[in-house]
């Protein structure tokens, strides 16, 4: 089993994802430079957070043009598990692998803090081991995480069970006060129709060890490993 962490100019959570996967979860993990156009030999893709191309123009707008993103698209079309975290999520939106767009936070300020998420579905490879309704404690760190999609798209997302995580209070209620950025319907993470591509603003790689304040993020990676094992990887 081998996990790819694509690295773009300006990626900066690449080492964190690598550390969590390789040293905490203990799976074989490798960086993939963005100019590479193949993901041959990899079983899952973790697109890390950061400020690719400085977040200039729009977050993820320039990274989507990298050769590696063509490979990610093919990988996803083949049913392979892909997770985009924070800037990785923004890249997936910009490349059209996930619907919708990110706007600047309602506060117009960067926000870095622990939030609570309610898991909505176990249908993705990354949430198979997390029962719907589970509340996770996990940090966000972004300036543009205010998820937007038009009403028809939002309705379709709900109907097809593509909303994977919502911001909520510690008891699991998706209240306005628990929404750190103004996202539509408190959406923190969504998947594609098929369920194999997940994008989320919060950072599971930052809370995969108790000593960092929470190990809830590890559950996503553990789920991924279990899912891959089941597939014989």
């Amino acid at each position: 089993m081998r996990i790819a962490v694509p690295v773009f100019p300006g990626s900066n959570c690449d080492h964190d994802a690598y550390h969590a996967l390789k040293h905490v979860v203990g799976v074989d993990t490798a960086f993939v430079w963005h100019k590479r156009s193949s993901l041959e030999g990899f079983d899952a893709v973790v697109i890390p957070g950061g400020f690719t191309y400085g977040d200039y123009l729009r977050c993820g707008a320039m990274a989507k043009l990298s050769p590696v993103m063509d490979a990610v698209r093919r990988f996803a079309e083949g049913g392979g598990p892909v997770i985009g975290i924070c800037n990785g999520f923004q890249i997936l939106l910009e490349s059209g692998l996930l619907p919708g767009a990110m706007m600047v936070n309602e506060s117009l300020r960067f926000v870095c803090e622990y939030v609570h998420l309610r898991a909505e579905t176990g249908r993705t490879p990354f949430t198979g081991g997390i029962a719907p309704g589970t509340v996770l404690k996990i940090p966000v760190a972004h300036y543009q995480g205010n998820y937007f999609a038009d009403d028809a798209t939002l309705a379709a997302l709900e109907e097809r069970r593509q909303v994977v995580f919502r911001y909520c209070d510690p008891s699991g209620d998706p209240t306005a006060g628990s929404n750190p950025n103004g996202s539509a319907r408190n959406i923190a993470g969504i998947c594609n129709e098929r369920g194999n591509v997940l994008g989320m603003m919060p950072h599971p790689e930052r809370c995969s060890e108790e000593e960092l304040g929470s190990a809830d993020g590890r559950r996503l990676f553990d789920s991924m490993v279990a899912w891959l094992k089941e597939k014989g990887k």
Partner: protein
Amino acid sequence: MKAKIYVTLKKGVLDPQGRAILSSLSHLGIAGVEDVRVGKYMEVRLKDAAPDDARRLLDDACRRLLANTVIEEYRIEIE
């Protein structure tokens, strides 16, 4: 040759920046502004070309990079 590109949020897309500016203006005591929408404005210098070709080129650039057509629309002016 030169061109100008305007990228603006589509109607119906909430503009957090515009809203914040509006409230700051009223804090500053600047009254009379009823709405602000913030967009991007790009000044582009191009190799000389027929205006039609230039437009086609920039249209391509907008669709593929400069605007996110999920939330934004764009306008190109060639000088």
